[in-house]
């Protein structure tokens, strides 16, 4: 039972549930409540409006590039010698990651609400780029908050956002990463709430964000499920996705939730160890998080005994967030999804492996899911199917990769690369 709220009492009456088991809810300064209620109403109205769906579908198809392919990773599967691995190619979407699904959806909503100014936070820069892209498309003002450490790590994406016309504001508080960027975006929103829509980039924050952002990413599993049935005539044994805030993972899991035989595996950032500040694995058994409230929602949080949020680390800027989407917290407690963590070093190795076996350079975030798939595939049967949500492409990470990986040993031969 939650220590915060008597969930889920009352939530049944809402058009859109704001709680996932004990988790979720709305924990924000009062100034934001009117805007959250307005957003909830606008979203509920849009859900019932065929015109909204038509416009969304049109943009997803012809601007973003949906449906994305489902690709059989033959060489990787054969070299690992176990489960057959399929890749859901979200990396092929416009702007290079799944993030655009949500940005188009929320951009359309902002337009319906008459808000001409968009703010967003970004960690790896993919959500910032997708937001800047949609703002350019819709002719809206765009301000992106990004931690200075992330600006340094993801320099190319900073340039892309500026090229697209967005103002990128560096955040120098805290660890100068994603959490701090969200704090600053929330402060901007509290101040400019009457004219501004906060285009939150993950299944985090106060209701209705976790539900709404999930819904905009449901297309991932809706397509993958259908494509898998078409290709293989059956469902995958397991779906694997990386989890920072958890938007690509919830999108990849959602339509499989009723399929009890499909394992759902979320991969957190294991960083460089299990000590405080060494990782961002909220569900780690020893050294992980516990239920708490951060940035508007009740979920697992990496914190000390006094309730202060502790630092995190990951080689990937998109996964080092101290909390996780509340729906993942509920799936974790219910045992419906499993959560594991993958160290930095394994993610880097998986980046090389996928690049060389399939000619696909994954984002470092995504590489965490690839690494877990590589770990479990050999122990599975060749009748098993492993579906990886390939959430983003790795071009943005070339700076980090250049520093972290020495490639002098590349032989030019592709016969046996794993």
């Amino acid at each position, binding site marked *: 039972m939650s*220590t*915060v*709220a*008597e969930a889920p009492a009352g939530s049944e009456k809402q058009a859109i549930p704001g709680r996932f088991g004990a988790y979720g*809810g*709305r*924990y*924000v*300064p*009062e*100034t*934001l*409540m*009117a*805007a959250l*209620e307005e957003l909830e109403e606008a979203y509920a109205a849009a859900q019932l409006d065929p015109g909204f769906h038509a416009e969304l579908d049109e943009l997803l198809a012809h601007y973003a590039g949906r449906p994305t392919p489902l690709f059989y990773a033959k060489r990787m599967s054969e070299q690992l010698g176990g489960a057959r691995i399929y890749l859901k190619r979200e990396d092929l979407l416009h702007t290079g990651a799944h993030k655009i699904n949500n940005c188009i959806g929320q951009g359309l909503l902002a337009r319906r609400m008459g808000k001409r100014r968009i703010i967003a936070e970004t960690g790896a820069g993919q959500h910032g780029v997708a937001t800047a892209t949609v703002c350019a498309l819709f002719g809206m003002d765009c301000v992106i908050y990004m931690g200075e450490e992330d600006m340094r790590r993801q320099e190319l994406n900073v340039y892309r956002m500026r090229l697209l016309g967005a103002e990128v504001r560096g955040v120098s*508080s*805290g660890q100068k990463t994603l*959490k701090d960027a969200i*704090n600053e975006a*929330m*402060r901007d929103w*509290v*101040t*400019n*709430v*009457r004219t501004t829509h906060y285009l939150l980039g993950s299944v985090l924050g106060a209701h209705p964000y976790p539900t709404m952002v999930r819904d905009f990413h449901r297309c991932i599993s809706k397509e993958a499920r259908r494509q898998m049935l078409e290709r293989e005539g059956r469902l995958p044994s397991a779906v694997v996705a990386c989890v920072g805030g958890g938007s690509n993972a919830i999108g990849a899991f959602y339509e499989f939730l009723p399929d009890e035989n499909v394992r759902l595996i979320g991969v957190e950032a294991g960083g460089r160890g299990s000590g405080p500040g060494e990782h961002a694995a909220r569900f780690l058994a020893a050294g992980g998080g*516990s239920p*708490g*409230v*951060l*940035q*508007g929602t009740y979920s697992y*949080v990496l*914190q000390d*005994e*006094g*309730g*202060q*949020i502790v630092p995190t680390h990951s080689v990937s800027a998109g996964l080092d967030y101290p909390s996780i989407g509340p729906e993942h917290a509920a799936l974790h407690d219910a045992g419906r999804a499993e959560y594991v963590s993958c160290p930095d070093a394994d993610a880097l190795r998986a980046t090389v492996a996928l690049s060389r076996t399939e000619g696909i350079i994954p984002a470092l975030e995504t590489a965490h899911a690839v690494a877990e798939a590589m770990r479990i595939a050999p122990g599975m049967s060749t009748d098993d199917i492993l579906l990886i949500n390939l959430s983003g492409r790795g071009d943005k990470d070339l700076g980090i990769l250049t520093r972290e990986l020495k490639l002098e040993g590349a032989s030019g031969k592709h016969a046996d690369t794993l």
Partner: protein
Amino acid sequence: MPIRFKEKPGIVAYLTAGDPDLSATYAIALAAIDAGADVVELGVPFSDPVADGPVIQRASERAVGRGTRLADVLQLAGRLREARPEAGLVLFSYLNPVLQFSRGKGFDRFCGTAAKAGVDGVLLTDMIAEEAGPYLRSMRAHALAPVFLAAPTSPDARLQKIGEVSGGFVYAISRVGITGAQPSMTGDAEQLVSRLRRYTDLPIAVGFGISRAEHVLEIGRFADAAVVGSALVSIIEASSREIAPAAIGRFIEGLRSPALARS
């Protein structure tokens, strides 16, 4: 001890507890009370203060950095209560430290400890009326006043709800935005207070951006108290720990009598 505003407008003085350290906060709080503050709000430092501007963010960071915990702030409140039995004492916190203090036991451990320390009321920045059920039950069981925020953006239906659940006083936010001193006040505050009066008979304190005697005078026309926060925290930031209590005392006296401040 019920919260009372003796003069109109009353003064609520916000201090980030543990900045620069807990014994300094103790001395500063006494000086604030002796200079005429009706209520001292002890801010519990938090790593992620999303509703606060740069001044309180920095104070919070310093206090967290020194290891200040909610348990320490409750102890500080107890010492202040002993020293000044008549003063109003309100804890001002983000939700998470309070939640962790009571881990697994709802809000009872927190409310019980706060009541025992002699705290009168609690304001949780990121707790809204709709989510407050279990919190309100514990607060009532320990005879603590739950202070809630009301914002210029809150529609009447929300103000009504806020009026229903509040105790002690209602904290009306003078303008949309984060905490921090401003040169002048907007018309938002007066309008908000007059809307709130329809839904509550509690005193109404106006805060956010209050830093001058003119502001306090202006607030006295339509509200019951003025909350001064960032302005005090700035003075503390700029002062040595030895002179900070006297500087805060003088500043608060000046807020009540502009002539004195100028002389």
